[in-house]
């Protein structure tokens, strides 16, 4: 059964089409990411599931039940908010027990459940503190515990890792992923960070200007982007124009080429080649990024750490496998 179903859903704010004719189906137990730049409609979609927004048009189902007209407090979904939205006047334990408290669960029972949830997110014994006394990463875990203690059928996460520093982000990504697998819950995860979406999700929906541009596995999205926008946004791929494609003997409106599939040197069998002039280079740790000017079009190559860096301003030949060049349906 589908956990979430969107049928031609739109949400307009005056003239702004925040969500514009979206069709989506999220399977039960799936880790589903909604990826897109800010203002692309991904957060509005999440809010439509949570019930904070009502669709202007279209139909939404949560586990087969019509969601339109259903207030947030009657939906068996819970949200982890971007700013965590912990209640500042309540202790951590009361924050986590809040959902049980408003449902009328007894004091002893809800304390036990809240402490269990805090232990699950590795914060046992923190119950007596106030949200203000916790670090960003700890607050994030409390927000997670507060949502999970209600045993939701779908957990919605709105850029939950956005405010954390890099190390903590990577750690939380792994923890979230393993938590989701252990609980077997449906997670819908909103992010503008393509790396995060690719690393965590079973499937990714790429949003742009209120529309879903592509839905697929991370591998699909990364290797076989359907549009220029998806190619560009997911991993800053090189997008080759029709003219460039023709130079390579390929007839297509556009094609994408991953920076890491390019090497410097003459093309061998089954490879294609281009000439370009290196114009900038930067050191990224494991790889070097080289930007080249190929007949007026800019192409970025990621060269392995040990590989020699070509001299600036001197023409070189690039080579890449024929299959690395992915032909796209349209240039938009």
């Amino acid at each position, binding site marked *: 059964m589908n956990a979430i179903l969107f049928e031609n859903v739109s949400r307009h704010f005056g003239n702004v089409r925040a969500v514009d004719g979206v069709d989506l189906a999220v399977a039960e137990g799936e880790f589903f990411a909604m990826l897109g730049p800010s203002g692309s409609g991904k957060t509005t979609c999440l809010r439509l599931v*949570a*019930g*904070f927004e009502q669709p202007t048009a279209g139909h939404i189902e949560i586990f087969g039940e019509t969601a339109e007209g259903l*207030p*947030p*407090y009657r939906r068996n*979904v*819970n*949200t982890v*908010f*971007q*700013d965590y*939205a*912990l*209640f*500042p*006047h309540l202790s951590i334990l009361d924050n986590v027990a*809040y*959902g049980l*408290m*408003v*449902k009328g669960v007894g004091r002893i029972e809800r304390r036990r459940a809240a402490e269990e949830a805090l232990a699950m997110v590795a914060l046992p014994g923190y119950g007596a503190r106030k949200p203000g006394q916790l670090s960003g990463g700890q607050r994030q875990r409390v927000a997670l515990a*507060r*949502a999970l203690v*209600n045993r939701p059928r779908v957990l919605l996460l709105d850029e939950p890792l956005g405010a954390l520093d890099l190390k903590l982000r990577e750690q939380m990504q792994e923890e979230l992923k393993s938590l989701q697998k252990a609980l077997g819950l449906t997670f819908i995860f909103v992010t503008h960070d393509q790396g995060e979406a690719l690393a965590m999700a079973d499937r990714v929906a790429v949003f742009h200007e209120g529309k879903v541009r592509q839905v697929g596995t991370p591998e699909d999205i990364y290797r076989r982007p359907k549009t220029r926008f998806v190619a560009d946004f997911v991993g800053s791929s090189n997008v080759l124009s029709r003219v460039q494609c023709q130079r390579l003997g390929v007839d297509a409106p556009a094609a994408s080429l991953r920076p890491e599939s390019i090497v410097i040197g003459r093309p061998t069998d089954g490879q294609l080649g281009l000439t370009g002039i290196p*114009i*900038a280079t930067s050191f990224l740790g494991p790889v070097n990024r080289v*930007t080249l000017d190929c007949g007026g079009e800019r192409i970025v190559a990621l060269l392995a750490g040990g590989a020699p860096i070509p001299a*600036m*301003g001197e023409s070189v030949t690039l080579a890449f496998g024929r299959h690395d060049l992915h032909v796209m349906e349209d240039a938009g």
Partner: protein
Amino acid sequence: MIMASEGQRTRLMATPGPRDRGSLSDMLWRNPKLFLALLLCLPLLWLGVVYLGSLAVFLAQSFFAIDDFSGLVTYEPTLATYRQLFSDANFDIILRTVTMAASVTVASIVIAFPVAFYAARYAKGVWKAVFYLGVMLPLWSSYLVKIYAWKLILAKEGILTWLFAKLHLLWLLEAWLSIPIIGGNSLSVSYTGTFLVFVYVWLPFMILPIQASLERVSGSLVEASADLGARPGQTFRHVLLPLALPGIVAGSIFTFSLTLGDYIIPQIIGSSRLFIGQAVYAQQGTAGNLPLAAAFTVVPIVIMGVYLWAARRMGAFDAL
């Protein structure tokens, strides 16, 4: 993405500032204590000496008593004035004033909260400006003019009686006025009238602090509460009300203490029975009993002190 080739590089040069200019600012920057002293000397002189100093001198009078024969103040420490304060007649005044202040405060909270909630949660742009104007505008006109206007509105021949008559509800007004204590010959000579005018005059002082406290409650907290299964009533009780409580307490300090101290409204509108403010006015003026006037003044201060202490104990300031 930043890309720069050899030729495009720009050089940034640090320009040293002149050392001789802004020496006063430099000195204050180096001596934060001197800066604080300069900042606070005028307000401290005013509040500390002129305001608190004279208040202390005045309150000290309450520990003296008036000599019944000569009518002069005897400068010997005594609690005789406080005994006088708790005589039946004077205690009635205190009870009447405190009851009025409490009723005015409760009514103000009930009326102010929805207005403040609307302003903090829904009003945007022009409507926000309309809200501030609407709340503040009454404060711009003279207090006395407003009270005399109310006297006309509440009078037996006034517009309210006329309105009730037009709506065929005169019986309701008369039934209300026939209730002992809060009723009277007309609204303008009843406690009901005094109450209405107090609520009208002090309402802005309740609306603004509540609005300010609600403004700080992030919308996502309300959403989070609903998300966790709380119905709107539960969200109000468990999230909005506790977080707005500092504002409600701040507003009630205004309405409560302003009502406790006012002597003009009960004099113009209401029965001839005294409120604390009128008692202070009468004692220090015509009666010449400065110690009793001072003792009456102590009452609101003590009540407010107890009120703040209780509010603190209840956790009203925990969210601050």
